[in-house]
């Protein structure tokens, strides 16, 4: 050191001050840039997700004048449900479309024309007639469902200026579509199938309802098992169990279990619940059991933290007036720890809701058309549905994948918001 000896305290402090402030500045800048980068990625994620997904909430429909010909639907005027259900509605819709293009007569051309329509168009018409048989014999202006390829063209996901051989829509079909558009017979309308249907190989008829119900049943099983078990375990370990090598071992294992890859739990579920216990494959019950195994450590750890956070003075007060240990826990400690426990539980549940890997192991990756009515019915789950759609070749499944992710994220956000709300609401009551 060549510098002269510091003259006074003021000088010594002043010399170091600049460096200290610079360090603080650097740290702040680093922190802010990290935050900015994180936010940018998040924004990009939401931008692409919503940009890809929002179109799935609408689908293309044609306005057609469908003549509900009595001779076709119910020639004997029985109005019996069976007869009405079996009638050839597809023919009626096709006729209505064909009527708009009278010059198309060749078989091949007609087939191409009819390909503009979704099989769902006939199903919708059947529902309508079954609901109101009085419609038979009249002509109805109906918005009928278009095929998913047409839908993609209308939404601009299939480019018109591609080579004809490179796209799924022929030039003629495009002409027909354009002429329908010119007559204002093409419109994007709300996609109710997306929210009410199960899996389907026709993208325009595919929806997330079945997967949502599957996820719901699964979470129900998970909650019913892991919350009481987790809370009881936490209470026992924290309040009653002696501190010794065994409880230390248990604690270490619980902490480790929280970090075990979820697919391992799936394998365990397959081996134990399905192969040994003989529970049904693809059932939300098994899914719920597996997710319980996964969620339990999370809930136990959160609950123990919540119990530790209750001040010892409350315990002493309860014991001091002669409460038994159980009374102390149930009357005083548990109510104070409950918000923390619930927060941990909801966060565990949110993780379980977003989990797909273990479900692949227990067969919940199946193609489920029907909506499950109990936890024992075969079902899929939301994240698995996302996985399945992401795997499908049709262009229309791309937007549905994004839309399903949006719905999944909305559920997760709602659950996390509930957790935050609970925490805010009951925080610091002592």
């Amino acid at each position, binding site marked *: 050191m060549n510098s002269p000896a510091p003259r006074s305290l003021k000088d010594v402090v002043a010399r170091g001050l600049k460096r200290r402030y610079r360090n603080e500045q650097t740290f702040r800048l680093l922190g802010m840039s990290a935050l900015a980068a994180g936010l940018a990625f998040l924004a990009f994620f939401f931008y692409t997700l919503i940009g890809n997904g929002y179109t799935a909430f609408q689908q293309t429909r044609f306005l057609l004048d469908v003549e509900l010909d009595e001779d076709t639907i119910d020639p004997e005027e029985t109005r019996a449900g069976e007869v009405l259900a079996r009638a050839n509605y597809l023919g009626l819709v096709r006729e209505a479309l064909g009527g708009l293009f009278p010059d198309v007569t060749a078989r091949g051309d007609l087939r191409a024309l009819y390909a503009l329509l979704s099989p769902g168009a006939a199903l919708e018409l059947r529902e309508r007639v079954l609901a109101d048989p009085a419609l038979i014999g009249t002509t109805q202006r109906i918005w009928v469902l278009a095929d998913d390829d047409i839908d993609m063209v209308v939404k601009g996901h299939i480019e018109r200026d591609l080579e004809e051989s490179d796209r799924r829509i022929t030039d003629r079909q495009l002409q027909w579509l354009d002429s329908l558009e010119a007559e204002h017979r093409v419109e994007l309308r709300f996609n109710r199938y997306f929210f009410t249907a199960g899996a389907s190989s026709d993208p325009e008829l595919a929806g997330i309802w079945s997967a949502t119900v599957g996820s719901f049943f699964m979470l129900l099983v998970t909650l019913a098992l892991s919350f009481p078990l987790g809370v009881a375990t936490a209470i026992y370990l924290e309040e009653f169990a002696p501190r010794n090598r065994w409880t230390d071992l248990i604690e270490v294992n619980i902490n480790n279990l929280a970090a075990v890859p979820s697919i391992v739990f799936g394998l365990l579920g397959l081996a134990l619940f399905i192969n040994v216990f003989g529970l049904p494959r693809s059932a939300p019950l098994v899914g719920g059991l597996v997710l319980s195994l996964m969620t339990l450590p999370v809930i136990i750890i959160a609950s123990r933290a919540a119990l530790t956070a209750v001040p010892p003075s409350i315990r002493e007060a309860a014991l001091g*007036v002669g409460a038994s240990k159980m009374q102390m826990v149930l009357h005083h400690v548990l109510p104070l720890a409950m918000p923390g426990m619930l927060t941990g539980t909801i966060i565990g549940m949110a993780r379980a809701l977003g989990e797909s890997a273990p479900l692949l192991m227990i067969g919940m990756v199946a193609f489920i058309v029907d909506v499950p009515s109990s936890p024992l019915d075969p079902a899929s789950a939301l994240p698995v549905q996302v996985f399945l759609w992401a795997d499908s070749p049709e262009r229309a499944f791309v937007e549905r994948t994004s839309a399903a992710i949006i719905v999944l994220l909305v559920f997760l956000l709602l659950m996390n918001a509930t957790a935050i709300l609970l925490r805010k609401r009951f925080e610091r009551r002592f």
Partner: protein
Amino acid sequence: MDSADAKSKNVSVSVPKPDESSQAKPGQAAAKKEYKTVGDYTAANAVMEARGVDVYYGDNHAIQKVNLDIALNQVIALIGPSGCGKSTFLRCLNRMNDTIESARVTGEIKLDGEDIYARDMDVVMLRARVGMVFQKPNPFPKSVYDNVAYGPRIHGLATDRASLDEIVQTSLERAGLWSEVRDRLEEPGTGLSGGQQQRLCIARTIAVSPEVILMDEPCSALDPIATARIEDLIDELKQNYAIVIVTHSMQQAARVSQRTAYFHLGKLIEVGDTDDIFTNPRHKLTEDYITGRFG
């Protein structure tokens, strides 16, 4: 505090000498320094009798061979420097030390002739008979009413709502809190002021009608006015209960207690009438402490 501790260590070297000579147990003296409490640790009208009480926290010998009687209608103050074992001894009296896993208590403490550390002594029953007020006011985060009613409820002291109301009212009256909270019974007890909270805790303790009330520095978190109120209250309560109070304030000990016990490094050095101890301490350590030379 540092200098005080250093001093106290210096002083303690000189302690055993007069004690050892009176003890006259040549075999054990080398292994363990025996000592003898100065003054009469017995009391007429004793509710609790502690004989040869040792407490260990793990390997730490927290209090050694303490003998002390707790008498009815009397306030006994436990004084001494920090870490001297007075709170530890207090917590032995209702077995609050049970909650500390490493704590081990030997010796004998009798409540009305029953050993409270005996196998058949129920700790819940014991704590109903020996109530405790803590250093920091710790009302339950419940209403004022529920705070006081909690003890009677869990012990089944009230058969109906009316008698419970009565217990709550008399307890709050005795704690000198009734007039202040009579209109706020449903408000949370944690919303009261510090002094009110501590009186609420006293009301909660006497609602169970204990025989003995233990107070662990009940005024250390309170301002002088609230302290004065609590001290008046302690004076009134001694009509009905035996009261043991741990305090850091010698003035407080002099004001509220009839007997005083001086603890030093886990030993009960001297016990006697408060007036005697403060005017005419017989042990050098006691004298040093109360004259403010350390602690």
